[in-house]
């Protein structure tokens, strides 16, 4: 999808967007719904699952944030943001009606559209849930276009779990298989699985048809290491395993060099890569 930007402004100048809704997701994470101030941009803005925007809090700086709403949401879009540093904490202080800057959408995407007819396996850990949510909600919106849909989600503790009400809904549905787990449950408030996300694989191993399945994964680097082993054990081809990588970013369009891995820029050639591609990129998974 083409990025929204006026060429006379140059690619580093954002468009103003207004915060129209804020929802607390966890202690540290908030969901922001945004709309461009220039009305004519709203119908033009269209994201593919897994793409990101560069979000500016003017005066503090700019950061890459995945669009968590699916492409089917039009007229506005959602960003889920964890408060971890300068820009993200400034963002958490903003209120409904405040102005931020948006450039994008940037990057390639999870090939949900491209693999119609296949079985889809989504595996996610922690904040990786946010970009992947756009992908699986898109697939669910067009449920009849796909075979089986599996979603495996692991997070650190019950308090960190994102969108519990949506997850509950997935659990109830007959036409998808959703499993979640937490690493630990100190408060003893979690009724479900305990352990890392790879512990969920036995639930689907029997059913999964490796030749007909495409996996889309998003989570911390350490998760990739273990998930990839499981996926290859199941017999998935490394061309059918798609992972989203995280790197420091400044420009978002392949110019500032901050996100370089080998001859690829994560912002431009990624963030989504196949496992086969990643194996040819030195230092991609460390």
């Amino acid at each position, binding site marked *: 999808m083409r990025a929204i930007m006026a060429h006379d402004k140059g690619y580093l100048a*954002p468009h103003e967007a207004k915060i129209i809704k804020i929802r607390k997701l966890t202690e540290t994470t908030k969901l922001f719904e945004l709309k461009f101030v220039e009305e004519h941009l709203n119908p033009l803005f269209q994201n593919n699952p897994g793409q990101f925007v560069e979000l500016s809090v003017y005066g503090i700086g700019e950061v890459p944030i995945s669009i968590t709403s699916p492409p089917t949401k039009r007229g506005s879009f959602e960003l889920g943001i964890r408060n971890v540093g300068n820009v993200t904490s400034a963002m958490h202080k903003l209120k409904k009606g405040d102005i931020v800057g948006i450039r994008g959408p940037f990057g390639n995407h999870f090939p949900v559209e491209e693999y119609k007819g296949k079985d889809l396996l989504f595996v996610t850990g922690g904040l990786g849930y946010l970009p992947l949510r756009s992908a699986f909600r898109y697939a669910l919106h067009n449920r009849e276009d796909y075979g089986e849909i599996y979603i495996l989600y692991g997070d650190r503790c019950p308090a960190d779990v994102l969108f519990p009400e949506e997850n509950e809904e997935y659990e109830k549905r007959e036409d998808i298989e959703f499993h979640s787990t937490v690493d630990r449950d100190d408060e003893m408030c979690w009724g479900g699985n305990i352990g890392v996300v790879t512990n969920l694989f036995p639930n689907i191993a029997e059913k999964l048809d490796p030749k007909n399945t495409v996996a889309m994964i998003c989570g911390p680097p350490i998760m990739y290491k273990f998930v990839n082993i499981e996926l290859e054990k199941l017999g998935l081809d490394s061309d059918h395993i798609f992972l989203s990588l995280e790197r420091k970013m400044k420009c978002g369009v392949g110019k500032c*060099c901050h996100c370089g891995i080998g001859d690829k820029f994560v912002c431009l050639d990624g963030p989504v890569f196949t496992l086969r591609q990643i194996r040819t990129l030195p230092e991609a998974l460390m």
Partner: protein
Amino acid sequence: MTSKIISREKISNFVDSMINDFIVIATTNKNNVPTLMEISSFEEVLFDTELPMIPLKKLFHPAQQDLFKFSRTKGITEIYMLKTTKDIETKVVVFGVRPCDITGNNVLDEIFKENFRDDYYLALRDRTLIVGINCLKPCYENCFCESMNSNDPKSGYDLMFTEIAKDQYLVVPNTDGGKRIMELYPELFEDATEEHYDKYIRTLELKDNNFKKDILVEGLPSELEDKFESKAWRKYTKDCLFCGSCTFVCPTCYCYNVKDKIAIDLEHGIRLREWDSCYYPEFAKVAGGHDFRHEKERRFRYRYLHKFIDIPRRYNVEGCVGCGRCITYCPADIDVREVLEDVRGES
């Protein structure tokens, strides 16, 4: 061909005439460092001299560049790029650029045009004419342009001066812009004769003989890939101060950082970009302290791999032009040629 002849003496008239019609930039001796800057007379020009410390890139990709002005609560209030685009009525001529630097700048042109056009860079680049001076022998001991195939660029300049006999230059236009400059000052040039062209050809043959290859770049990318774990990287990592000088003086280094600068009213501010260096510890570090290139050795190695593997693969051009600046200005005396040889020599 519309090439012309000019004498050494008239070159000063040529430059002084251009000063009336253009903004002319040349290498000067500001603060005893060879520096590219605007000149007001040919007298300021260092003519037969070493390369400017900071190459051409600073004219199109300034070390620090304001992007736009913003209000914290309202957003962008003024974009500086519009200003630079309007300013470009006055053309800029850079006089006396060496072939390696022309080749180096071609690399940046390629990078800044790929996919998303960098209009900040290209607005400044497009208003600039480049007048080159041919090198007939290696200009100093750190030069290895021949190895990097950079001393005979086919594009990226408008005029090229080649000294074909003592104090006599053949001026070859390479673009319409170059032709037009020559047409502005017809009285300074003579028509070139058969004899001049013969001398030109002999001069170029002489040039070919004067340059030797220091390092072989054929096959270098895959060789370096195999030497990813070479111990030689570690050896040089120990010496490197990670000061970033090598990246700032390099004609093909272009990474930048983006920053907001806020005024004391805490309401207005400027977003700017400035040169960054992959040798700085913060370069790949993300929130929470995770650093994708944490070990110094990886950081040290990255610059070499980026120049000698990644840029050639991605843009189909050499990522180093052999200008030798990183050797000249390295406080730790690290020589890129030696590092490559050492890494390659390791089994």
